[in-house]
């Protein structure tokens, strides 16, 4: 019984049904956010007042996401948070009425990094809607393409975007007391990465000049070179199609990919060693860092990387092929696995717009799915995107993001969610390089220049900013090993003469066809929900990882993941005057999610006349 909050129960045969005798089964409470704002205002008035002075080192604000916090600097507490998507992207409206085959190319443009993931998710949605099963080599090559995309994405985040937050320059400016300690702290993983002290690592994390920063730039090139062997171009591949891929794959293609992939064997060892050393140092230095960005490990993931002997694209078998994925789909609630079935993941999804610039829709067309699972009127298949621009108000509507929930709970998404679920659930089939223990994932990395090694990512006690990034570092060798295993499968298929990479199909001109694509961006969970009617897209709904993470308050007042994580973050930064406050703890908390858009944070310091504006730029992937 995976649902605690939705009105769904299961009979003795495990068949889901809508609970009876409930007048409005999907009803929910809508709280008045004005009360919270009034309380906050009153609290501030008692303690003085807030005057805002722009402290703005960023003269150009190119954000699609803004984050507002009210901080009590005397108490070192965050009092209030609001996550705002400031841009309407409208892909769901653009896609309506088009040929389904356009979806892969158009939805790919939702992101400047994860274009290939959107294209593949779109292809999966069409495959489910129209019953298309790609040939084994098509499935395997899509897996490799995705793993390589992660090998581009994770170093980019860890060293170019989040890394500077832990660099010598930033730490010296925000917590100078840590520098002499870092100079004395010896690295545990020197044999792997070559650094003697933590300060040596921190210096090479310095933006623009540090060797780790520059090395990551080079590694993004290596990954892109591998990617274009299959995708044709990056970030918007031309070769991802429903039914497989559209390029011929030969041994030569595989060799070109392998010559790049192998570089990530050592790089994966090095990266995990570096971040283990840096994060252990922070957490040992001050255990309050455990609270930076902390929230319950309540997360959703779609799972990725299909097994060619399981995947058939059908909704009917989606639990079977979903559980066979190299990364397991499902939901974690406070660190416990509540489902690994794609059909339950799908059935529990809802989107709410009470605090977003959209109108509520009326229809409840799809009351159950094809397996009989009850579907809420707020389920993506029932949703209609109706933009309603309006005034920004913390009391009412303040975001272009919707509030997606699973079983009425806001869900976090991330690269780490796929690792956490897979390690914890232990349902993924046996792998040559990966072992899931229920409390960790063991990754056996083969020899390249470094000796072979068994890396182990352990499920942490606290789910915080540091652990998100640590897990993301382990996702580099994890992704590389999945790529390697698939590369070996591809070789075998070609040797066996199974060289077909796609299955032909036609778009039916009659009837209604329903599907959803469930794949994962570098930042985690990504779904495309599709309804085709008379050969054209009747409804297309996209939930990106940032739709989940950047969500505004739920109608019943539950904060979105960014909002909750920042609310729990203590202010540990040192400063002489409030004007010098930089907001590093909040930035670390938000950036640990790898926020999927140019994200600007505005931190208002209580009693200080001071607004800090910082960019939290990652990828330009969007919300609606």
């Amino acid at each position, binding site marked *: 019984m995976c649902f605690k909050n939705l009105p769904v129960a299961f009979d003795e045969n495990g068949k889901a049904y809508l609970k009876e005798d409930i007048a409005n089964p999907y009803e929910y409470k809508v709280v008045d956010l004005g009360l919270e704002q009034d309380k906050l205002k009153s609290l501030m008035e008692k303690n003085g007042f807030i005057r805002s002075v722009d402290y703005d080192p960023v003269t150009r604000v190119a954000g699609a996401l803004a984050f507002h916090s009210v901080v009590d600097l005397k108490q070192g507490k965050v009092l209030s948070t609001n996550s705002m998507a400031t841009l309407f992207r409208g892909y769901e409206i653009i896609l309506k009425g088009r040929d389904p085959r356009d979806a892969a190319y158009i939805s790919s443009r939702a992101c400047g990094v994860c274009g290939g993931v959107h294209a593949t998710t779109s292809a999966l949605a069409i495959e489910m809607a129209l019953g298309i099963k790609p040939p084994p080599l098509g499935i395997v090559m899509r897996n490799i393409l995705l793993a390589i995309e992660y090998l581009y994405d994770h170093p980019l985040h860890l060293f170019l975007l989040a890394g500077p937050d832990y660099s010598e320059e930033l730490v010296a400016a925000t917590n100078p007391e840590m520098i002499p300690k870092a100079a004395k702290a010896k690295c545990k993983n020197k044999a792997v990465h070559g650094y003697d002290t933590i300060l040596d690592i921190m210096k090479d994390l310095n933006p*623009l000049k540090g060797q780790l920063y520059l090395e990551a730039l080079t590694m993004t*090139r290596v990954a892109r070179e591998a990617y274009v062997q299959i995708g044709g171009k990056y970030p918007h591949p031309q070769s991802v199609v429903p039914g497989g891929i559209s390029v011929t794959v030969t041994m030569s293609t595989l060799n070109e990919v392998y010559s790049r992939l192998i570089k990530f064997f050592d790089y994966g060892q090095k990266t995990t060693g570096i971040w283990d050393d840096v994060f252990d140092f922070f957490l040992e230095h001050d255990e309050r860092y455990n609270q930076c960005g902390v929230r319950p490990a309540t997360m959703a993931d779609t799972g990725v990387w299909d097994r060619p002997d399981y995947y058939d694209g059908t909704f009917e078998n989606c639990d079977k092929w979903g559980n066979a994925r190299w990364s397991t789909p499902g939901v974690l609630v406070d660190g416990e696995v509540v489902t690994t079935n794609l059909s339950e993941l799908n059935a529990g999804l809802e989107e709410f717009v009470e605090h977003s610039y959209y109108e509520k829709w009326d229809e409840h067309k799809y009351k159950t799915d094809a397996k009989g699972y009850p579907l809420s009127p707020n389920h993506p298949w029932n949703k209609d995107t109706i933009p309603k621009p309006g005034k920004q108000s913390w009391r009412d509507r303040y975001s272009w993001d919707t509030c997606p929930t699973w079983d009425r709970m806001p869900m976090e998404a991330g690269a780490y969610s796929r690792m956490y679920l897979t390690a914890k659930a232990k349902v993924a089939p046996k792998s040559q390089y990966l072992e899931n223990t229920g409390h960790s994932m063991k990754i056996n990395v083969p020899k390249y220049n470094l000796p072979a090694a068994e890396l182990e990512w352990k499920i942490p006690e606290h789910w915080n900013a540091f652990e998100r990034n640590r897990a993301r570092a382990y996702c580099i060798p994890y992704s590389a090993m999945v790529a390697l295993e698939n590369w070996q499968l591809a070789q075998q298929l070609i040797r066996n003469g199974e060289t077909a990479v796609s299955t032909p199909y036609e778009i039916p001109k009659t009837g209604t066809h329903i599907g959803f694509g469930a794949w994962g961006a570098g930042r985690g969970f990504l779904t495309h929900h599709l309804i085709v009617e008379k050969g054209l897209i009747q409804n297309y709904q996209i939930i990106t990882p940032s739709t989940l993470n950047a969500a505004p308050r739920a109608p019943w007042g539950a904060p979105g993941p960014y909002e909750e994580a920042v609310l729990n973050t203590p202010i540990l930064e040192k400063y002489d005057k409030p004007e010098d406050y930089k907001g590093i703890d909040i930035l670390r908390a938000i950036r640990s999610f790898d926020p999927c858009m*140019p994200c600007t944070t505005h931190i208002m310091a209580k009693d200080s006349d001071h607004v800090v504006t910082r960019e939290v730029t990652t990828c*330009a992937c969007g919300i609606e």
Partner: protein
Amino acid sequence: MLSQEKSQPVPVESNKKTLIGTVGYHILGNHSMPPMLYSHLQELDLPVHVKVDELNWGPVAVVQMFQAEDPPFEKVIILCAVERSGRKIGQIDVFKWLGTLPDEEQIQACVGDAATGVISVENLLVIGEYFKVWKDEVYLVDVEPGPEIAGEDWTKDMQDAIPAIISTIKRLAITGVDDQMHLKFLQGNTIFKEESILK
């Protein structure tokens, strides 16, 4: 909309290895003139030392392409359409890039944008400067697009400007800066400020 210009014998400034690049988002009306003009520029009758490429695929990747280019490009001409105050739609300005850099926080912000898919000619200039890929000459042929509008169509003012845009690019590429160009200047330490244009 576009007519292919006849090839005329023109005096060649030098055999400087030259890149003509286009920068801009698609489907944003006049703002998308550069990427939409790209295929036409490719068809121009240009000397062999002049290459045309689209430069929308990320400043970091563009830098890596320049670093791998041997011998390097000596002259770079970037076609862009940046909305600036005080200009009429279709007005063509030729800017010479003078180099210099903004502070490191700003450069890091540019890399952050660049690494994540934001298309911006300013980012490209700053990141290229930081990684020292610009050699002798970098010019922007910058055409005023007016306010951003969604769609694939250009306004008449922009359409009317196309022959002059192409002529300006060809002259810059083949014969170099001439008296009709009234060069203006941009540099990295002021490029993100209100009054970024140096006259």
